């Protein structure tokens, strides 16, 4: 059955493995001979874009990754940031775009499973997840099916595993018609001295396999070609990965118990190209060789070849180096949790990656080169062009402000996501202080009297498309604002950079400019990047054979620290009589706004610009105001502008608002999407004090109105422009998603 390994290496086969000629030449040089079939698979797995970041590395290096609180930056399974008292928060975001398009439920589910594994592999117990989702236009025939499958999959995995979902995003745009985005975020908490990494230490130590059995899940198309050398082709067809949250939950508990015993020297989860990447990483990082015997790998299918075992992406698997003295304790734990485990190899001092199967050595490669010498490209790129400014007078006002407001609040990108997040367990673990539906999600630090963590995920792809640099800055800035709006100090950031084909200079140009913007913003807002993920080649092949790229979508997720959740802020706690303040100035920017898209039916012009100094100044001010107890409610102003933000606050707080705003250009002021702005509701007794403070701190602000009575009669009034029943806003806001999904959702869920 190892016949596969003697398969001749043809140029076609090399190409099938996504390797170009220079890459293959380099491989032959490093291997010091022609690689075997299995070795070719191993090289291709280590050198593909996903594992090697060969197109993006050069630019990722430019991101700020350090800060006083950063314990582990990029390079480990997840970023690690100190939150004081010896505690750390461990978090990362990762994409599962393509699998979710092929099989939405399992694709999304295994995406969530993968990111949770990244977090608990480091010794952290997961405490929160988020999911950033992008789908094609609502009317596209595939969209409903994908939405219901993805949402059910995210929930199906996270709910069973037992971690609350506290936030995310859902956007719709034709540019995702053939290539949806599923970006999953997870965060966990650990003790700083209880963090585990993949770097192996010590020679002659057992390499232990733990978790689910290995099948042919996700083994690349190349195996199909290799199947011609096999009799039973049908059984060897590569299969879609299926998630098993139950096994993952057992794996979590087993790993944490194992770490408690002190048995773990190094640990690495098996993600993409599972056994290959995890084993090589452990060895390369530890300057050790690794010897694997595939005959000892627990398999769930017969006649698996070495190639298949090395490239299998079966889920819920871990690789560890354990202290031999602790073997009995370890065994007891694995048995207790009913997990398959086996000693599949050992560490060596040879710096070679040696793989044996059925008595034959099927691979013998230099481990450092596998790990570290992947090609790194400086792909050609062109600086994206700038749109010339579009003055506000170029945009028609609405015929009817009330109608416009109701249309916007009920539009696909602004309608309530309740239909989505009510399918996620948002309360499990009993620490959720702020569920989805506001700005950031907030979770208490378990066991700590007053600390809490805030989480938000943001990017506005239409801005990034219009101006990758400003759009990159804006993604970070909006994330920052969402954290600030709950009273959290932004700590650190993770990113999930979703772009098209990097071999196209204009796409690479988007990537480069977006990273420049993200880097500057993270620097200025003191939220270093501690982990991340890059997803390239997100394109839909269009009629004329070419590929149309998705909107450039660098999703930014960040974590903030609330020192005392007794004085945090929410969007939904405004009280009758509160004074409403706008922190910021009158909006002027209407290009690329939802007003332009939904009301005027255009998507043109430049993105709003982000003044990072101003973001910081206003953010600091709002944070201070919240922490000193001024804000009875707070909400940042983003999509849809001031009017939408006011409407969202009225809906969340179930109140009305009476606003007299001093404005010069109504529809720009109400719907413009200028950045660095917040709405703060302040108890009227404190209103003057708050105003005085704003004066003092030099941030621009305006007192714009008063919160009015809750209940049936509640109305949102803005000057002589807007006067709508909050009930009508709610109707439009809540109706869209359920109406859109309707029967389909039921049918899909039945599967």
């Amino acid at each position, binding site marked *: 059955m190892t016949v596969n390994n003697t398969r001749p290496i043809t140029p076609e086969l090399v190409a099938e493995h996504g390797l170009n000629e220079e890459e293959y030449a380099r491989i032959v040089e490093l291997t010091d001979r022609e690689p075997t079939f299995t070795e070719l698979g191993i090289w291709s797995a280590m050198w593909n874009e996903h594992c090697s970041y060969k197109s993006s590395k050069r630019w990722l290096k430019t991101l700020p990754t350090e800060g006083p609180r950063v314990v582990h930056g990029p390079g480990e399974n997840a970023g690690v940031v100190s939150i004081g008292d010896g505690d750390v928060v461990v978090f990362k975001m990762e994409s599962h775009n393509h699998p979710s398009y092929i099989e939405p439920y399992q694709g999304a589910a295994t995406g969530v499973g993968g990111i949770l594994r990244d977090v608990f592999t480091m010794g952290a117990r997961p405490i929160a997840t988020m999911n950033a989702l992008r789908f094609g236009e609502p009317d596209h025939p595939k969209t409903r099916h994908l939405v219901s499958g993805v949402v059910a999959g995210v929930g199906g995995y996270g709910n069973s595993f037992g971690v609350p979902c506290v936030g995310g995003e859902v956007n719709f745009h034709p540019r995702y018609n053939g290539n949806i985005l599923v970006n999953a975020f997870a965060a966990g908490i650990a003790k700083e001295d209880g963090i585990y990494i993949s770097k192996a230490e010590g020679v002659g130590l057992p390499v232990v396999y733990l978790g689910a059995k290995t099948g042919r899940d996700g083994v690349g198309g190349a195996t199909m070609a290799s199947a011609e050398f096999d009799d039973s082709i049908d059984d060897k067809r590569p299969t879609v990965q299926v998630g098993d949250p139950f096994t993952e*939950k057992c794996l979590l508990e087993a790993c944490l118990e194992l770490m408690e015993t002190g048995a773990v020297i190094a640990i690495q989860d098996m993600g993409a190209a599972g056994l290959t990447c995890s084993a090589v990483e452990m060895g390369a990082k530890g300057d050790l060789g690794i010897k694997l015997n595939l005959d000892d790998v627990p398999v769930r299918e017969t006649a698996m070849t070495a190639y298949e075992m090395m490239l299998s992406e079966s889920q819920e698997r871990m690789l560890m180096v354990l202290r031999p003295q602790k073997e009995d304790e370890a065994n007891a734990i694995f048995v207790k949790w009913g997990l398959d485990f086996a000693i599949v190899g050992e560490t060596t001092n040879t710096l070679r990656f040696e793989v044996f199967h059925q008595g034959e050595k099927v691979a013998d490669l230099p481990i450092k080169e596998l790990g570290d010498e992947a090609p790194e490209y400086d792909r050609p790129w062109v600086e994206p062009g700038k749109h010339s400014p579009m003055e506000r007078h170029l945009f028609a006002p609405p015929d009817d402000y009330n109608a416009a407001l109701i249309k916007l609040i009920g539009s696909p990108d602004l309608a309530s996501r309740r239909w989505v997040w*009510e399918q996620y367990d948002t309360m499990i673990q009993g620490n959720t202080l702020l569920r989805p539906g506001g700005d950031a999600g907030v979770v208490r630090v378990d066991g700590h009297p007053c600390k809490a963590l805030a989480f938000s995920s943001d990017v506005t792809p239409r801005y990034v498309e219009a101006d990758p640099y400003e759009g990159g800055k804006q993604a970070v800035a909006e994330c920052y604002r969402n954290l600030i709006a709950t009273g959290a100090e932004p700590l650190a950031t993770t990113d999930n950079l979703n772009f098209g084909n990097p071999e196209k200079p204009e796409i690479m140009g988007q990537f480069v400019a977006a990273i420049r913007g993200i880097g500057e913003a993270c620097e200025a807002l003191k939220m270093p990047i501690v982990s991340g993920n890059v997803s390239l080649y997100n394109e839909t092949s269009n009629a004329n054979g070419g590929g149309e790229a998705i909107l450039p979508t660098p999703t930014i997720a960040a974590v903030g620290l609330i020192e005392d959740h007794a004085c945090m802020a929410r969007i939904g706690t405004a009280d009758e009589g509160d004074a409403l303040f706008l922190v910021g100035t009158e909006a002027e920017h209407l290009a690329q706004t939802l007003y332009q898209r939904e009301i005027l039916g255009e998507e043109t012009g430049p993105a709003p610009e982000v003044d990072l100094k101003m973001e910081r100044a206003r953010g600091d001010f709002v944070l201070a105001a919240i922490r000193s107890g001024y804000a009875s409610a707070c909400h940042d102003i983003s999509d849809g502008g001031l009017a939408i933000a006011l409407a969202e606050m009225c809906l969340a707080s179930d109140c009305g608002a009476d606003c007299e705003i001093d404005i010069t250009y109504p529809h720009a002021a109400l719907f413009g999407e200028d950045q660095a702005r917040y709405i703060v509701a302040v108890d009227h007794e404190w209103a003057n004090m708050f105003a005085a403070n704003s004066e003092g701190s030099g941030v621009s602000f305006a007192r714009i109105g008063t919160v009015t009575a809750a209940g049936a009669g509640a109305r949102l009034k803005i000057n002589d422009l807007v006067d709508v029943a909050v009930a009508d806003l709610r109707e439009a806001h809540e109706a869209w998603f359920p109406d859109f999904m309707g029967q389909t959702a039921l049918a899909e869920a039945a599967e």
Partner: protein
Amino acid sequence: MKTTIIQFPGSNRDRDMIAAISLISGQSPALAWHTNTALPDSDLIIIPGGFSHGDYLRSGAIAARAPVMDAVRNAADKGVRILGVCNGFQTLTEAGLLPGALMRNAGLTFVCKNVMLEVANNTNPFTARYAQGEVIRCPVAHHDGNYFADPATLQQIEDNGQVAFRYAESTNPNGSQNNIAGIFNAAGNVLGMMPHPENLVEPAHGGTDGRRLFEGALNMIETQFALGAA
């Protein structure tokens, strides 16, 4: 009063329950693994929420057949108070300790939200701290909470006053018959409910109405409560 919490592989609201019991009773509960054949002597045994054994096959089905359930059954026969929440409720029905079954939610999706609960029978230690007919807000989080029993059984449950809680103010999240959210066994010492009182026991939860259920279950009330007089 001594509390024991049963843990199955896949239980995931066990930690919430441990926290709630510790907070309310000031004592940390004993824990019993699903393979145990004996239980520490307890006044209250709790089967917590989660996805025991992944809820594969049917929710609670595999858990209901675990060795520890014989011990639970014996305790129930002796009159020890048993509380099953969510997956615990499903497990108790699968084990035959409570009548009926919990089917897939009528909407077919997992649902996590706050619902309104009416106390349908407060003549029982579990519910004694609530007023008859009192309506409280309480979270639910489940995929299979749609209570079903055949007409005869349903009639019996109603006649015996075995309905402990009903979804109120048209917040029935799962299509349960008669808006049933929680039921007692005929003897009144076993309570199963889908909602999560353990996630409603401190101000940070947005309310503390769940406390009274545990306070009722945990205090030493020797008098046998007459059922049926609901």
